[in-house]
């Protein structure tokens, strides 16, 4: 009850200043009146009575003020007072304020920018309702545990039927389709999905309708749904799009709907196209059996209400165990794994993002340290002011509160500037980031980001303001007021604090620099890896032949032979070839095989190999060396001769100690009744990632396993891109409706595969550079200040005979001593922290001594310069002036 009274009284006082003052006023006036009346009763004349009453009261106004203050009405008032005063102080020293605010702005700005990305990628709700209960369902093989594998449609159908834990399951896969008709033929990335995909994701078309099971009845589906982007770009956003007929792969399709503008459904991991779909087609999966199709789809499921992930996984395990028994040949060793949607999208970059967030945190800390030492330095000069305040009756708490207000005001100023800076930074980030990494619309300054900035600013203000405030308010009244204005080097406690700040700065900067250094080395190592082929001067372009026009294998093979024949005649082309899936560009196929003459492996244990279909000139075009035997000749390139070429990894793994030439293998994918003969072994080539391990590879020629989609490669003697138009023309000359896609250089593909790593490394390096600069500025500032304070001491030394050189050495020595401590602490810190990076590093250990040593040297060097400049200035000073300056 008492508390309530107190609280309500304070509240009233806080918000009702006028009311409270009026209250007090009335009460005191009444008192005055009654006193006056009493005086009148004693016989005083009325005028005299009033004046006597007033006099006996004392100073009416100040009593009112005191009374008001005791009532607690002061809080809001004093806060406003403090803020006004703080603002005045900041304006009085524009240089100081500018430097401090800018330093903070850099720290806060960088943090906010990275946090925006973290928010967009890791924190924000996915744009699908119930995304938290949606999971990707992959298959995985126990031999390859942990690696998600594309799924079998036949298995999917069984899962869907038997699994009760999911109330919806959908399957899909990415394809490319040739869009012809209006305008140039274009290859459009698309997705074939079961009709319940959109209902599962909870997103409906903005125009028209979603798929229904009726759409999959009949020979082949002929309804499509477009993405908003495709509708705008290719069809001009025309409002009569629903019901329109378009030609895809030569077949007539009807547009039945258009998805909303920001809808995207793209699983990069196992997408055969590597591009987000712009068009959707339904499929009923009826004709897919285990006999006629392998694993190539992806699936997604939504948990039924009340079902947990563990329960669903357990049920899937039961189902897959059952399927293993039923279809041992196909399913032995296979089970299903659930991956939450958020993890699917963000898992890959989570570590890197968090590392970056940590890095900018360090940068912010360094900015705080810089500003704190600025404040400390200034506080040393404000001792007089503090003393006067204390003498006037301000308690220590009041002084601290006032100084903290200054810090907070500064922090908010820096924060506001930082917010502006971060908007610009985010724009730059999105513009420079690799494709498909950041969604431009998603990343931006929004409510959580604003709240974050506010919190960070507040925290910053307290962190860098508290120490100086505590220090400055610790005032020995009599001493300070008596002191002449002899420049004091500040209390020893203040100096210790400043020293500690320098050490902290150096340590933090070192940790960050080591991290960046490790990443940089790792990236350089990665770049230096030999991919096994010569990527220079190779132009690539993709051609996907539509089924309708090229139904016979013979037609497919003929097309590519003609295309390559024509391309070889182009001036500037030294060799031309084709491959079913380009290294670093496409997702290739893999299959299992057995070797003739060896016991068949137990069901569930199988030998798997990657496969590629290549034109006979492929190895020459890519400059992949032949290790033994030979590669395909022209005849084998034109006819089905059951011959294959393998890579060294395959030879090592399965023909160790023997000669693989002449041996024969049966490969499941080819489904031939007769085996294929190995005619040659070629050098290993990297296909997916530079740092991945080498997998066995088998190469065939197109007549054996024709593929409608091929990547054509041209080795050029001139700049590869200059031949792009000519190449396109040759293809169109064979078939005027055949689009050509993904025209790039091989080097471009390689670079893109490393784009994310490069981006992350660059960012980290940028932050480390920023940290180094801030630390250097900080050291310079502290040294300058300390030297300025010691003018008289230096003057005395020089007057007593010290040479400029000695003074220089003295000052630098003292500064470097601090830096050394910081470096040692930083190295220890780095040893502890860099293990966080180990999953991101290639070929470099997280405690690589060379990097540590190099960075330490760098930091010492930079710090030495930062100490040298002010020291030199000090040594130049005329000793007479120095002593005189008192």
């Amino acid at each position, binding site marked *: 009850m008492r508390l309530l009274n107190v609280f309500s*009284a304070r509240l009233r006082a806080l918000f009702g200043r006028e009311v409270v003052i009026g209250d007090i006023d*009335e009460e*005191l006036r*009444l008192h005055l009146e009654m*006193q006056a009346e009493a005086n009148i009763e004693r016989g005083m004349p009325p005028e005299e009575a009033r004046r006597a009453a007033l006099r006996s009261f*004392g100073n009416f106004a100040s009593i009112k003020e005191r009374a008001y203050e005791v009532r607690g009405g002061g809080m809001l008032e004093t806060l406003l007072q403090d803020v006004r005063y703080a603002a005045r102080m900041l304006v009085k020293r524009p240089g100081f304020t500018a430097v401090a605010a800018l330093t903070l702005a850099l720290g806060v700005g960088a943090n906010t920018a990275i946090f925006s990305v973290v928010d967009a990628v890791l924190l924000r709700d996915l744009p699908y309702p119930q995304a938290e209960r949606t999971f990707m369902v992959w298959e995985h093989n126990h031999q390859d545990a942990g690696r998600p594998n594309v799924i079998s449609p036949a298995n999917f159908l069984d899962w869907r039927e038997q699994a009760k834990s999911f109330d919806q399951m959908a399957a899909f896969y990415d394809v490319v389709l040739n869009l012809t008709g209006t305008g140039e033929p274009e290859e459009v990335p698309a997705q074939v999905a079961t009709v319940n995909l959109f209902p599962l994701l909870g997103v409906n078309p903005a125009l028209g309708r979603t798929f229904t099971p009726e759409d999959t009845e009949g020979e082949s589906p002929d309804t499509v749904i477009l993405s908003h982007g495709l509708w705008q770009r290719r069809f001009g956003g025309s409002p009569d799009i629903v019901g329109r007929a378009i030609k895809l792969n030569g077949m007539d399709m009807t547009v039945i709907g258009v998805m909303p503008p920001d809808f995207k459904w793209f699983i990069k991991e196992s997408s055969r196209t590597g591009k987000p779909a712009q068009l959707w087609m339904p499929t009923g999966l009826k004709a897919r059996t285990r006999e006629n199709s392998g694993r190539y789809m992806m699936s997604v499921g939504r948990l039924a209400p009340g079902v947990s992930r563990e329960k669903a996984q357990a049920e899937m395990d039961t189902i897959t165990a059952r399927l293993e028994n039923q279809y041992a040949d196909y399913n032995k060793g296979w089970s299903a794994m659930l991956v939450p949607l958020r993890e699917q999208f963000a898992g890959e970059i989570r570590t890197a993002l968090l590392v970056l967030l940590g890095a900018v945190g360090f940068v912010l800390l360094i900015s705080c340290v810089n500003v704190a030492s600025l404040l400390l330095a200034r506080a040393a000069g404000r001792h007089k002011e503090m003393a006067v305040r204390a003498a006037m009756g301000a308690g220590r708490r009041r002084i601290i509160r006032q100084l903290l207000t200054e810090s907070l005001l500064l922090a908010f100023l820096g924060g506001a500037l930082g917010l502006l800076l971060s908007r610009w930074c985010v724009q730059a980030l999105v513009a420079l980031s690799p494709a498909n990494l950041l969604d431009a619309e998603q990343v931006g300054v929004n409510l959580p980001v604003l709240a974050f900035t506010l919190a960070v600013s507040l925290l910053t203000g307290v962190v860098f303001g508290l120490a100086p405030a505590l220090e400055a308010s610790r005032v020995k009244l009599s001493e300070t007021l008596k002191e002449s204005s002899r420049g004091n080097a500040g209390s020893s406690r203040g100096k210790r604090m400043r020293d500690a700040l320098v050490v902290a700065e150096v340590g933090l900067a070192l940790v960050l620099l080591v991290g960046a250094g490790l990443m940089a080395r790792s990236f350089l190592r990665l770049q230096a890896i030999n991919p096994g082929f010569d990527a220079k001067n190779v132009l690539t372009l993709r051609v996907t032949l539509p089924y309708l026009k090229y139904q016979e294998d013979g037609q497919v093979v003929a097309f590519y032979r003609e295309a390559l024949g024509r391309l070889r005649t182009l001036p500037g082309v030294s060799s031309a070839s084709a491959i079913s899936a380009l290294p670093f560009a496409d997702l290739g196929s893999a299959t299992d095989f057995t070797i003739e003459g060896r016991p068949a492996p137990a069901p569930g244990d199988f030998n798997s190999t990657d496969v590629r279909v290549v034109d006979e000139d492929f190895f020459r075009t890519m400059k992949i060396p032949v290790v033994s035997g030979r590669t395909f000749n022209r005849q084998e390139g034109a006819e089905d001769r059951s011959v294959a070429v393998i890579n060294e990894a395959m030879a090592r793994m399965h023909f160790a100690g023997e000669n693989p030439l002449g041996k024969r293998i049966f490969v499941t994918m080819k489904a031939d009744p007769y085996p294929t003969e190995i005619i040659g072994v070629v050098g290993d080539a990297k296909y997916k990632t530079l740092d991945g391990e080498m997998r066995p590879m088998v190469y065939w020629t197109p007549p054996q396993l024709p593929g409608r989609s091929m990547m054509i490669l041209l080795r050029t003697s001139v700049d590869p891109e200059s031949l792009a138009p000519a190449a396109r023309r040759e293809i169109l000359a064979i078939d005027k409706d055949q689009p050509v896609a993904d025209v790039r250089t091989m080097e471009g593909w390689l670079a893109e595969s490393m784009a994310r790593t490069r981006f992350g490394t660059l960012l980290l390096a940028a932050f480390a550079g920023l940290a180094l600069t801030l630390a250097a500025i900080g050291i310079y500032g502290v040294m300058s200040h300390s030297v300025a304070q010691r003018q008289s001491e230096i003057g005395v030394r020089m007057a007593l005979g010290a040479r400029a050189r000695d003074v220089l050495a003295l000052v630098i020595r003292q500064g470097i001593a601090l830096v050394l401590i910081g470096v040692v602490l930083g190295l220890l810190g780095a040893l502890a922290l860099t293990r966080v990076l180990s999953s991101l590093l290639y070929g470099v250990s997280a405690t690589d001594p060379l990097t540590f040593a190099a960075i330490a040297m760098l930091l010492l060097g930079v710090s030495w310069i930062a100490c040298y400049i002010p020291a030199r200035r000090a040594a130049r000073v005329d000793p007479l002036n120095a002593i005189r300056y008192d």
Partner: protein
Amino acid sequence: MAKQKADLLQGTLDMLILKAVSLGPLHGYGIIQRIHQMSGEMLEVEQGSLYPALYRIEQKGWVSSKWELNETGRRAKFYTLSKAGTIQLEAEEASWDRLVLAITTMRQAT
């Protein structure tokens, strides 16, 4: 013989106010009067120091206040002793007695 005015020891003002109010609700002027009265007209509280002390006591919850009409029909703020205030008064009186005893004992020592 003129009455000797006693000097107020610091800190005792709170106790006096509480005592005054313990006999019944009073407004500020009335408190001064009653203290004057109850002390045998020896204590005159400084008008200037009354109100800050009074507000502080109210903050601590030892008295509660209410606007009411006084004897001449004007609006005045009346202060009443609260339960916490009663306890506080007892405590202060007890410590005062101890203090007096201690000093008296000292005075009687030779």
